[in-house]
């Protein structure tokens, strides 16, 4: 009996411990090229059992599980692998091939024409902070981007002139929404500053050609600014500047933040100290304010609202070029408001939606010797984009937008009781779609198309865009881009004649980029054809047509190194430009006055931690620019002297929350001449009298102290400088 009992017990024991019998699973994990993947996670789903692959991609583990189980293999950068196993104590050998997943980190990007500045992405050439700390730029976005290849220095404008294009051919977009006038007002022939401060943005994408079908109404370049998300810390910032002051406050809640800033600028005290080329009647005064609200909605939703207003005035006296004995008084009052709301959300795991509405209001009252010109422009832009993945190899986006703007200029003469109004309203409706097709992580094709209807010019158009990116290895990649672009003629011509077509450009770009940790090398070459440019007989702009044309071609080099020298960051840009146009009232196809063949700049930044200082210097060179001297027979045959500028800046951080900043442009004191202007009629001796267009002052000296008050120690305004 006892024996039988023992038997039963034993039998039970055996059945129970049979559960402990092990199955050995081994094998190896390779990629599609047959190379071992070390560190992959091999597991039996819903159990603890599994192993990591070794250097050779091999794994081995045993399990007590029985029956059907799923073997799961995962590794970052690869698609998950699943296989059903039948476990029954016999050893299993499984060889697994993981397919690479297309992911933004590893995948090729299209770099033709594109300079992206972002703090988040790792493979960027330019960081948002770079804009703030570039000497000579005085924290102006355009100023900093002017040190990159593809731009031509046009000192009297301050705008971005890209690859033989005029300043208005570069359009600014904030969160995808167009800004009608991105630059503040300035006296004639003095540089204007951008209206938007760099610290507002987490990403800046500056494209010098071949950009996405999402962006229209830009012939040469798109500057796409991506505003910051919800702020993380409540803080107050104070700035005391040599030309005014500002106060900013950011309030943070759990899921929202609100920031506001008021800035007052008055150049009078500064001009009292530093001799100016300009005879000011009323030096530039402005009051600016901006406010940004951010709210997180649901799990992935984000609402952004941004508003900005500015009111400024200036007045100056200048010698009448037609009659040097006379002086004229010019005054300029400018009111500006911009509001933008933006919403983005996730529709599903693979699809997202974003969209918004922007409104621009601009009022410019100019008075020249009692003659008044009041200019008013209002614009509304509505846009929605849906984007997502069709598969892991195809990403698409599609969107629709409407841009409506109305322009009015009222001119009142001081002599005649004459009032003339010029006005137009333009409405552009556009549809666009674009797809990124990845053949692998190394090869991508982007195909896009943009269709537009312009109500004013009664034009329907379709513009194709296509680009390719090919990654040679971890560091180097090639890109090609082609596209057609169009833009409505400038307000100056459109207000006189609406019986016009849009101006057009075609871009062809080839680019090679090499990024190795902290060193970047880029070379890019391009050809750009202009068609349908505005053309008219001299003195007859109201009878304009689209008979103008032109081209631009050239190559550009860029080198940046943050590695070789300790605590030093520097970059060098060189652009060669060959361009000619026959447009406006030009007598022949020539190089336009804003173009220069050679542009070169070096930006140097040195951090000295012992002194808690950052020193910066920027040297820029532009080869001579053409201008037309009516005293000569040939058209546009004269050349200005070359442009040289050496600017320096110093940031000093005596305490974590205090920054002292000083900068000075043109420390060599060079008298740069941007061009010449001439009287319309010759004087008694038959000579057209002329004068040089110079810098408003040899140097611009800027001093500022920035103080941050915050509960969290160690926070300063460095990014806002």
């Amino acid at each position: 009996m006892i024996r039988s009992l023992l038997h039963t017990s034993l039998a039970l024991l055996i059945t129970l411990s049979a559960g402990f019998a092990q199955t050995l699973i081994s094998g190896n994990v390779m990629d599609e090229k047959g190379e071992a993947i070390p560190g992959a996670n091999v597991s039996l789903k819903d159990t603890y059992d599994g192993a990591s692959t070794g250097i050779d991609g091999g794994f081995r583990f045993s399990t007590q599980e029985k029956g059907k189980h799923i073997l799961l293999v995962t590794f970052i950068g690869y698609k998950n692998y699943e296989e059903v196993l039948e476990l029954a104590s016999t050893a299993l050998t499984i060889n697994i091939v993981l397919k690479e997943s297309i992911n933004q980190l590893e995948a090729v990007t299209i770099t033709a024409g594109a300079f992206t500045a972002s703090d988040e992405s790792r493979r960027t050439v330019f960081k948002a902070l770079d804009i703030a700390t570039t000497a000579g730029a005085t924290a102006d976005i355009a100023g900093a981007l002017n040190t990159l290849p593809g731009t031509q220095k046009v000192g009297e404008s301050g705008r971005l002139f890209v690859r033989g294009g005029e300043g208005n051919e570069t359009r600014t977009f904030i969160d995808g929404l167009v800004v009608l006038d991105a630059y503040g007002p300035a006296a004639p022939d003095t540089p204007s500053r951008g209206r938007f401060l760099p610290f507002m943005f987490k990403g800046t994408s500056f494209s010098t050609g071949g950009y996405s079908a999402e962006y229209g109404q830009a012939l040469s370049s798109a500057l796409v600014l991506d505003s910051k998300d919800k702020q993380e810390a409540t803080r107050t910032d104070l700035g005391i500047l040599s030309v005014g002051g500002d106060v900013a406050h950011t309030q943070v809640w759990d899921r929202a933040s609100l920031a506001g800033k008021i800035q007052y600028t008055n150049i009078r005290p500064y001009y009292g100290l530093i001799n100016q080329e300009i005879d000011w009647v009323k030096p530039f005064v402005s009051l600016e304010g901006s406010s940004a609200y951010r709210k997180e909605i649901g799990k992935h939703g984000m609402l952004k609202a941004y508003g900005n207003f500015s009111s400024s005035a200036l007045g100056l006296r200048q010698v009448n070029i037609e009659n040097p004995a006379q002086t004229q008084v010019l005054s300029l009052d400018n009111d500006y408001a911009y509001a933008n709301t933006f919403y983005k959300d996730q529709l599903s795991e693979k699809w997202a939606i974003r969209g918004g509405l922007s409104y621009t209001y601009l009022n410019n009252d100019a008075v020249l010797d009692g003659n008044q010109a009041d200019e008013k422009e209002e614009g509304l832009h509505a846009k929605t984009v849906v984007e997502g993945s069709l598969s892991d190899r195809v990403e698409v986006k599609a969107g629709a937008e409407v841009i409506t703007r109305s322009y009015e200029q009222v001119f009142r003469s001081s002599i005649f009781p004459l009032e003339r109004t010029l006005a137009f309203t333009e409405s552009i409706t556009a549809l666009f779609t674009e797809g990124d097709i990845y053949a692998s992580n190394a090869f991508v094709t982007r195909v896009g198309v943009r269709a537009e209807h312009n109500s004013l010019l009664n034009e329907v158009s379709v513009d194709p865009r296509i680009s390719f990116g090919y990654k040679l290895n971890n560091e180097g990649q090639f890109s090609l881009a082609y596209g057609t672009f169009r833009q409505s003629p400038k307000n100056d011509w459109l207000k006189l004649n609406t019986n016009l077509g849009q101006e057009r450009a075609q871009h062809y770009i080839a680019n090679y980029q090499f990024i190795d940790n902290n060193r970047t090398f880029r070379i890019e070459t391009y050809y750009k054809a202009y068609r349908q440019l505005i053309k008219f007989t001299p003195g007859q702009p109201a009878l304009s047509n689209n008979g103008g044309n032109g081209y631009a071609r050239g190559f550009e080099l860029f080198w940046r190194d943050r590695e070789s020298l300790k605590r030093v960051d520097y970059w060098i840009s060189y652009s060669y430009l060959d361009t000619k146009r026959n447009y406006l009232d030009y007598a022949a196809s020539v190089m336009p006055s804003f173009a220069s063949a050679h542009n070169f700049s070096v930006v140097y930044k040195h951090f000295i931690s012992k002194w808690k200082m950052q020193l910066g210097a920027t040297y820029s060179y532009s080869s001579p620019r053409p201008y037309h001297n009516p005293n000569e027979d040939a058209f546009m045959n004269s050349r200005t002297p070359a442009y040289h500028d050496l600017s320096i800046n110093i940031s000093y951080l005596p305490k974590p929350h205090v920054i002292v900043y000083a900068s000075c442009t043109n420390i060599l004191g060079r008298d740069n001449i941007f061009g010449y202007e001439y009287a319309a009629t010759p004087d008694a001796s038959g000579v057209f009298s002329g004068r040089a267009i110079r810098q408003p002052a040899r140097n611009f000296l800027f001093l500022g102290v920035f103080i941050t008050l915050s509960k969290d120690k160690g926070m300063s305004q460095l990014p806002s400088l």
Partner: protein
Amino acid sequence: MKKLTIIPLVIAVLMLLAKLALATDRYTEVMQKNIEEVYRAKTVEEFQSLANTFHRIAEAEKTKWEAFYYEAYTYVMMANAEVDAVKKDVMLDASLKALENAKNLQPGESEIVALEGFVHMMRVTVDPASRGQQYSGMAFQSFNKAVAMNPENPRALALLAQMEFGTAQFFGSSTTDACATASKAVEKFENQKPTSLLSPMWGKNMAQALNNKCQ
């Protein structure tokens, strides 16, 4: 006789119970073993293997925050051992993902928030010039939040002290505040009472080293 027939049944039941008990306790046991290994690990490979193990446990258990927490901790240590900047970021991304899972299982856990701050602190080291500002702010915030959630959390204090010390050193300002936080951290380490067998215990050496610098 009848009594005797019960014996095998009793044995069987006992064994079954033992097996069940083993299963419930297996989590703690396996975790403890791997946690010890993490504290000893040095190389990227070792950390990767341990992160994988914690991930497997977390996925199998589904409701245990500690497994995700230690996965995240392992990735931070792994990022610390890695030289390549891009790879470091990948590891820190993986760490945040695990912390997100931990947070969903155990909202309001001070340890998770403190570790999140550690991830931000590690981000700074990848590119101090352009990231310092943003991420050191975020790190400070997380550490302060973690201390507010549990003033007894010595790791939150030690990390906060580390951050304060680094900032003070960078600006050449007084380290008094940082050192006060460091000595408080050491004191809390002396008195830390683990709430479970899997409570985080790391960070004491870091706090002591900083405290010694302060002396």
